């Protein structure tokens, strides 16, 4: 289960809407499965169908997360026209089995849907999000 403060979720959704029609992406930092900080990242693909985080931003964020004594607990991105479920491309690019993969669906722009998943060796498992 992922524990997430509503303000962090709102921040992610706001970024996803701001980046629309392109996909947005970012990193969720925290500890013991509880989100504490959101890092908005640049989608280097600038695409409505794919995302790739800027590597320089990734390295910077990972160092800061470590300095704050936190961990990367999630990687999030938006699907602008499809459901909040990992695509085959998401699965191919899931290199961190220990983190949660969050997907914000903007299929209904006024009613975004978020899903959280663990992706381990190609197997997708949905997990609950406990909003606090």
């Amino acid at each position, binding site marked *: 289960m992922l524990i997430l403060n509503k303000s962090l979720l709102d921040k992610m959704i706001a970024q996803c809407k701001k980046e629309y029609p392109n996909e947005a992406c970012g*990193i969720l930092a925290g500890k013991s499965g509880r989100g504490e900080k959101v890092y908005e990242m640049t989608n280097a*693909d600038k695409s409505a*169908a*794919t995302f790739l985080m800027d590597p320089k931003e990734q*390295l910077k964020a990972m160092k800061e997360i470590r300095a704050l004594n936190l961990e990367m607990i999630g990687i999030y991105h938006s699907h602008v026209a499809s459901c909040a479920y990992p695509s085959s*491309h*998401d699965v191919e690019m899931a290199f961190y089995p220990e983190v949660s*993969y969050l997907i914000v669906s903007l299929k209904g722009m006024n009613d975004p849907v978020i899903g959280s998943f663990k992706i381990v060796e190609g197997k997708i498992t949905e997990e609950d999000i406990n909003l606090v």
Partner: protein
Amino acid sequence: MKITIILNGKKEAVEDGTNVLKLLGHKFIRPEVVTVELNEKILEKPKYGETILKEGDRIEFVYYMGGGSYAVRP
């Protein structure tokens, strides 16, 4: 003989003469899916095999973080 490097913020002893490609291999990391930074500069992939690590080198690696709705059914 071993040297000490800082790998993702942690000290690690590696054999003297180890190059970046060999280090990734020891960690079971596919070089084609990571970005490697050596002493604050991103290292180009073709240089992984020719870059020999030195005492005190600070090396960071991050897996690519990507994906997207491509190929998903609406």
